[in-house]
């Protein structure tokens, strides 16, 4: 990096070193901040301000239809949630749908990445193809899946019928509907995670595999003892991202049946959907804001638990 100096250095006279050096040092110190400033300005406007404003709103009773009338409620919006069975249902659903979608998703992604890591013909094509579900919009994907999971005319029930099973009501059943929603999520995100794993796998030095091969380790053993340990930071990253995604899950359950209640008896209503129902279905903005904040805290908690687990494992490794 060069810094222009305002007086051209005379050939004979020594350059005004101390001043220029101080300026350079100063600029060096400041410039990183200047470079990252746009992000933080935008973050303050579109991230921090809404966050704080949401916290402020969550202490009031505000209705979307009459936003100018605010009534102080203190922490009532929060304490009300503790005895709100819909909230607990939503929390439970978020957790179960999260597990149902994240676990198979990441396992499948690992497997896919492992396969894509081989020297295959048309590798680039396959890698792009894997990402296509992620590129489809949630709306389009969900609408197609809603048709597939239809009770009377759905392809899946038709196929089940061929094998001799009676049709499943994918919308009304608690387990069935959660499986259906999780399927959409898994379908959309598996390829995305697979490519992240693939990137991680390629950073594992080839010598390790060669050494393992010389030691007579099978492919499976190599995967277990070379690939997995090497991927640990990547896996942690995907787990964190998926956890955040699962906690905020919204589009798929909303569009699955077009119901903001998450089905007739809230059977697949997630926290995100419950927040939306409170805010934009019933127009209780204060309560919706409280749910938003609880979700935020929940995500922070989950992420720090993840991080703590990872740190403990690393320490254990180091201690070995």
């Amino acid at each position, binding site marked *: 990096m060069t810094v222009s100096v305002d007086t051209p250095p005379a050939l004979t006279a020594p350059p005004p070193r101390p001043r220029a050096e101080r300026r350079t040092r100063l600029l060096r110190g400041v410039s990183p901040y200047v470079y990252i400033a746009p992000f933080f300005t935008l973050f303050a406007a579109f991230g921090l301000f809404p966050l704080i404003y949401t916290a402020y709103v969550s202490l009031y009773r505000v209705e*979307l*239809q*009459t*936003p100018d009338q605010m009534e102080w409620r203190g922490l009532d919006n929060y304490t009300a949630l503790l005895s*709100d*069975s*819909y909230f607990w249902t939503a929390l439970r659903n978020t957790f179960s749908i999260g597990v149902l979608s994240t676990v198979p998703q990441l396992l499948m992604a690992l497997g896919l990445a492992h396969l894509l890591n081989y020297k295959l013909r048309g590798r*680039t094509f396959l*890698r*792009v193809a894997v*990402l*296509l579900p*992620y*590129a*489809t*919009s949630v*709306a*389009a994907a969900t609408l197609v899946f*809603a*048709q597939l999971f*239809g*009770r*009377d*005319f759905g392809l899946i029930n038709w196929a089940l019928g061929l094998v001799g099973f009676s049709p499943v*009501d994918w*919308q*009304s*059943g608690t387990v069935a509907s959660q499986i259906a929603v999780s399927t959409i999520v898994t379908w959309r995100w598996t390829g995305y995670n697979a*490519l992240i794993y*693939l*990137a*991680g796998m*390629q*950073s594992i*030095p080839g010598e390790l595999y060669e050494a393992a091969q010389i030691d007579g380790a099978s492919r499976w053993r190599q995967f277990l003892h070379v690939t997995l340990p090497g991927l640990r*930071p*990547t896996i942690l990253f995907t787990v964190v991202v998926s956890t955040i995604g699962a906690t905020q899950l919204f589009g798929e359950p909303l569009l699955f*049946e*077009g*119901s*903001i*209640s998450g089905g*007739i*008896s809230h059977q697949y209503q997630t926290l995100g959907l419950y927040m939306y129902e409170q805010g*934009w*279905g*019933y*127009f*209780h903005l204060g309560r919706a804001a409280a749910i938003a904040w609880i979700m935020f805290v929940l995500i922070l908690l989950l992420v720090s638990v993840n991080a703590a687990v990872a740190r403990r494992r690393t320490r254990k490794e180091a201690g070995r």
Partner: protein
Amino acid sequence: MPVARAARHVAIRFGAVALAGALLAACGSSSSGSSSADGADGGKVTLTVDLFGTFGYKEAGLYAEYQKLHPNVTIKESDTENEADYWKALQTRLAGGGGLADVQGVEVGRIASVTRQQADKFEDLGALGAKDLQAQFSQSKWSAATAPDGRVLGLGTDTGPEALCYRSDLFKAAGLPTDRVELAKQWATWDGYLALGKQYAAKAPAKSHWMDSIASLYSVMVGQQKERYYDASGKLIYDSNPAVKAAWNASVKAAQDGLSAKLAQWAPEWNQAFSSGSFATIACPAWMLGYIKGQAADAGKGKWDVAALPGGAGNWGGSYLSIPKGAKHTKEAFDFIKWITAKEQQAKLFTKQGSFPSNLGAIDLVKDVKDPYFSNAPIGTVFGTAAEQAPVQVPGLRDNDVNTQITNALGEVERKGTSSDEAWSHAQKGVKNALG
């Protein structure tokens, strides 16, 4: 985490793919934002009209006609199928003050919320020149859209006199009479209707049911009441109103007798079922005729018929056209809604689409209308009589929200086999949560 060269390579490629993906996704999502069209250039005005369900203006050719009369006006309609979704979006826009259309439809179940809570957010049509239109509309339709201080916030479009639509081909297959007069006699009461349903179920074609959903049965039954969820003083009475309970019980009974196709109204499966013959009857406010035509299209032509409603006349739904503050072309918008709610247009709309007029002059014009799509049923007299006899309903502040909670609970009864008592307690809990 150190990034090896190969990995970086992948990352770059991955970035390119992700970018392509984002573009793809942008193409994939069908919701094209309504562009803000400026009327400034050359006196051209683009009027935006935002509606829900099936108003049928486009289908009846009314936009084309208006544009011919006013060459400087282009009308752009957007439509949301489900009214609940539409209302949500409208409320968000009203709160934010952006994205509002020049003309916004308002369902009768929401009109009380507009006049009592949001009068400031809509133009006073009286000030724009609607004062001398009052005599054209029935007293109840007009006063429901008038704020306590006299501001007129919407012009009436259709109303929802009720009848029963049925598939005469399925009736024939099940050995039931198909003549609408004969049927009206047999189902003079709801008990008669349910008894006929049992006969149908015994001999019905495979996979065909008597009715689409108990939610629509319930909605049409409470539509026969003067007071439903609120009393005249605005007090919430839904859980003590015996009429609500009676409609609930009849609906539960119908589900237990297996008369329902268990479809969720407004869901894709429900739409498909209009042509596939999954159900033989559907509670049918006048605006439903247009909906049936839209969903069943040619597959249902001549198969559907209309008969008088069991248990007397009633009203379900009906709408208003309003101009929100913040509309870009207030004056043009008013000219348009004045024209489209005039008697000639309302009469034409009924003839082509079945939406029953709220304009008194139009009601006289359509007395003899028959609908070829519905086996030439005399819809003019069927709905005309119903409109005459229907009770003047008390509009409640959150009518539609209460209705949604109750019909959701009925869905549990019919689709999950939840007991009536448990489902009713869910409905109560839901109403409390929604209104609280």
